[in-house]
């Protein structure tokens, strides 16, 4: 369940209650496939609170479980695939990038010397996920000749609803990798970033970092592939995610990457699936449009027929949207 974006206040969601039935034991419920579907009774639309969305629509637009009926199944297979990948590539080296217990990176080393490195920031609605869950994303890169570094950082549940510590940790992790790349035979001048979901919000904040203050070059990140993220926190703040993130005006302003485009020195690839929530599709589209308008290098990839979690799965797939984009960005020879 490590990949889930379920906001904690909502419990398992309407759909989560039904998803398991698809796995086997089958009651006489008429059409079995209905067991995977979220029942959504018709209701009257309320006053608009954001664009053309009323409050419930906005809340739903920031609740992946409403739009991804198979979230639970995907979490199951991710866990199984992670075990398989770990058994193939072995456990990573776990190294501290900061003073607190969680400030660790998992380093999956490739065999190639002075290799490029992909730094990964996981999703989970800022609440869930640990670096250990992502060996499954590491394997294709390690085999293709790149190091893979999965960043651990606090959950927003551990920071009293404050997103600043999470962003600060991810920024310091990147600076640490730059300074210490040689320690794992990585090339500090070939660092790349990859992320999904709330991790892409954090990655958006990372690419707008004032690197000089951290003592690393402006172009420390040579490229970034951000899947299914949020780049403007205003509508997020208006949604039910406010129940567990203590948004402030300062936080909304500083941690909305879309408002700091001038600081970006990294070419970006933005990805969303056509089955994601309307807001998660719009966030990527609008961020891409803003970057383009500012003359910054950006590519928007739309994955037809993929929901939020299915887009994430493609990081571990060299021939699907996120994996292929990252491989191409890093100029890896993936076969």
């Amino acid at each position, binding site marked *: 369940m490590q990949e889930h974006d379920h906001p904690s206040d909502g419990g398992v969601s309407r759909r989560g209650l039904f998803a398991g039935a698809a796995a086997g034991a*089958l009651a*006489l419920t008429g059409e079995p496939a209905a067991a995977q*579907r979220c*029942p959504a009774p018709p209701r009257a639309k309320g006053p608009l609170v954001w664009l053309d969305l009323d409050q419930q629509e906005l809340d739903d637009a920031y609740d992946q479980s409403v739009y991804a009926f198979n979230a639970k199944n995907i979490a199951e297979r991710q866990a199984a*695939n992670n075990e398989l990948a770990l058994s193939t590539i072995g456990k990573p080296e776990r190294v501290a990038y900061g003073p607190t217990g969680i400030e660790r990176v998992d380093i999956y080393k490739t065999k190639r010397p002075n290799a490029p490195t992909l730094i990964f920031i996981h999703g989970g609605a800022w609440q869930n996920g640990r670096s250990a869950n992502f060996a499954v994303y590491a394997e294709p890169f390690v085999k293709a000749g790149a190091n893979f570094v999965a960043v651990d950082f606090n959950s927003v549940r551990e920071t009293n609803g404050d997103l600043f510590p999470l962003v600060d940790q991810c920024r310091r992790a990147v600076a640490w990798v730059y300074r210490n790349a040689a320690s794992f035979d990585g090339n500090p001048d070939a660092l790349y970033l990859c992320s999904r979901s709330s991790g892409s919000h954090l990655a958006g904040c990372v690419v707008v970092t004032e690197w000089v203050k951290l003592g690393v070059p402006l172009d420390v990140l040579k490229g970034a592939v951000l899947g299914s993220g949020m780049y403007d926190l205003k509508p997020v703040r208006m949604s039910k995610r406010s129940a567990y993130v203590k948004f402030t005006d300062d936080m909304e302003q500083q941690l909305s990457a879309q408002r700091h485009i001038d600081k970006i020195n990294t070419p970006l690839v933005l990805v969303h699936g056509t089955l994601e929530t309307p807001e998660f599709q719009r966030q990527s589209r609008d961020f891409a449009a803003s970057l383009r308008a500012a003359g910054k290098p950006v590519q928007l990839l739309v994955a037809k027929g993929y929901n939020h979690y299915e887009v994430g799965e493609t990081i571990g797939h060299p*021939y699907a949207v996120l994996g292929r984009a990252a491989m191409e960005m890093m100029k890896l020879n993936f076969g």
Partner: protein
Amino acid sequence: MTDSVLSADVERKAAPGPRPKGPLVWRDMDQQELDAAYDQSKYAANQAQVQERRLVASARARAVLGEPLRLAYGAGAIEQLDVYRTTRANAPVNVFIHGGAWRNGRSADFAYLAETFVRAGAHSVILDFTNIDAAGGNLMTMAKQVRSAVAWVYKNAASFGGDPSRLHVSGHSSGGHLAGTVVAADWRKDFGLPGDVVKGALLCSGMYDLEPVRLSHRSNYVKFTDEIEQELSALRHLDRIACPLIVGYGTCETPEFQRQARDFAAAVAAAGKPVQLLVGEGYNHFEMLETLGNPYGLLGRAALAQMGIPSV
């Protein structure tokens, strides 16, 4: 808003209510349950979406790999196959047999499976063959075609740089059924070829005993006979199986498709033949095949390992 939002809503339909159970027709199933157990759409809510992404990925793969060689293995117009060539000389060959309830699917729509093999150093051959409606409901016609296609590849592999002594077969869904009939073919009697033409096979989400299939609504479009049921149930010809098998299914498949795989693998093992049962946790029928197109996916990894060309 956009079309894509509407298509997400497709997955949110309400469930109909319960109904009384009818007389049992197969194991613990009444007719409606058996029919549903042989109807993927009843269990895979995202069937249309997975198909959509398969077509996009196949177009992408053809753009990346280039158009395949198109070669004829028989006289009929449909009796052709696509060869996606690897650069390695005298390379192993994987022959893929597509699914589609025996009714649908064309080789070009499965190009996305080729990249895994081609990049790992194997040729990927994807078969075209007739569909059950064009065959007048006769499943034997389809089985004969795929068997003769495999025989053709064995005899002609060298013409496209393939090594006939390293020929592997894979199939999914009704193509898993047909691949089962390939590994259970009588190569000597029917083709005058050695019994070990196929060196390994991956059968995913298939049917290996046609008895319950015959009892289901699929009888409406497949003209089952006793002979077809007997000859084309791989489960009943275990003695002919001469290569290691990988049998796969997903835990979100219909109960029958799960059982077919489990029972077949158990029978093959009981006959003392090498078989590996692969269970895809959290995958439905269509999602299972997607993992064959990923060298690090459940099926892709297993197929490459079986061919002795592990993911790079």
